[in-house]
């Protein structure tokens, strides 16, 4: 093989490799972690978030409308403060909407389900969802079940 042919092949190879890298970064992946996603953030307080993690989905009637962007603990009342990052497309959530931590299937991953309220004003950046329902923790449920059984007997 002549040197020139080799150089051409090397050129093709490098360009193809770079194209693959560009495709992976631009098309396959998303930049949400850097840009924070094009959307707005609202907070919600929960007694107990169970197994909820950052990046867990936020759904509305089963449709994913955003993700959990951070989780913190409140220093005063020891509850959990969850920040939800919601896509700009869904900026029509009433301010009295409620959020619940749900479980996909019996033992699946946990996510936040939003149920819209009836107010005319919409949630916007920095608002908080006041009515929340904490995660169902299976161990607590079983414990309660056993206690109530024992009480009944």
């Amino acid at each position, binding site marked *: 093989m002549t040197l020139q042919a080799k*150089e051409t092949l090397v050129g093709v190879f490098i360009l193809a490799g*770079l194209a*693959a890298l560009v495709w992976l970064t631009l098309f*396959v992946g998303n930049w949400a972690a*850097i840009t924070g996603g094009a959307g707005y953030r609202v907070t919600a307080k929960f007694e107990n978030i169970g197994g909820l993690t950052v990046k867990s989905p936020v759904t509305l009637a089963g449709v994913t409308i955003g993700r959990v962007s951070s989780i913190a603990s409140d220093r005063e009342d020891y509850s959990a403060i969850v920040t939800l990052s919601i896509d700009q497309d869904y900026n029509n959530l009433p301010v009295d909407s409620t959020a619940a931590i749900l479980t996909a299937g019996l033992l699946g991953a946990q996510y936040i389900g939003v149920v819209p309220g009836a107010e005319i004003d919409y949630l916007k950046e920095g608002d908080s969802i006041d009515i929340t329902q904490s995660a169902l923790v299976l161990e607590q449920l079983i414990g309660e079940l056993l206690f109530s059984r024992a009480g009944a007997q």
Partner: protein
Amino acid sequence: MVRGLGRAGIAAIHHTGRGGMFLASLVGGMGMMVRRPRLLVQQIHAVGVMTLPIILVAGLFVGMMLGLQGFNTLVGFGAESSLGLAVGLFLTRELGPVLTALLFAGRAGSALTAEIGLMRATQQLDAMEMMAVDPLPRVVVPRFLAGVIVMPLLAALFSVVGLFGGYLVGAVLLGVDGGTFWSSMHEGVDVVHDVLAGVFKSFVFGFVVTWVAVFEGYSATPTTDGVSRATTRAVVTGSLAVLGLDYVLTAIMFSEV
């Protein structure tokens, strides 16, 4: 027995130390590449272009396997719409960088060790020294640099081909919606934590595998037997280093996102 272990341990440490010194002198010899880019192009051809077919074929099959296994597992939870996400995460985070590095160690790494080892055994390196040409920048540095440059490119191509393999099986054969496949992938795969972390991994792997390969070749006992043992050692050490480092890097980069 104990003494034998001790001696082997000291020998291993000694070998590692020599490898480190060798790496330092490699870095020292890199200036030459600016003046002689042709040497580098030749080696990118030998190391990268020649490894490409095996990478592409392997990537396609691994992607197809992921499509099939992923579908069979996810369909049990009714979550086959996440197939694209599963395939995308597996390939960009783990399988792309790791399998590419392992295949690279077997194909290009062994070839590098054997080539340099044979140059040592047939006194070609000695002849260069006697012709007042330092074989390190002339022979070893271009091969080392080529390996470092080529590995992330190969891994990216592996992942891309694998994604299409997964799409082929998942969407075309098993009937997952094609749009859902790509959108679930785009939704869940993060550029920084998944794609770029994978690229970083493959860069580290390329560095280590090529370093081990050229060092084993350069320090091979100058006999046929010595070269064959050095080649085996290069592949074994390179592969184990990849798997070990993969754990360490994964633990550092993916642990608490």
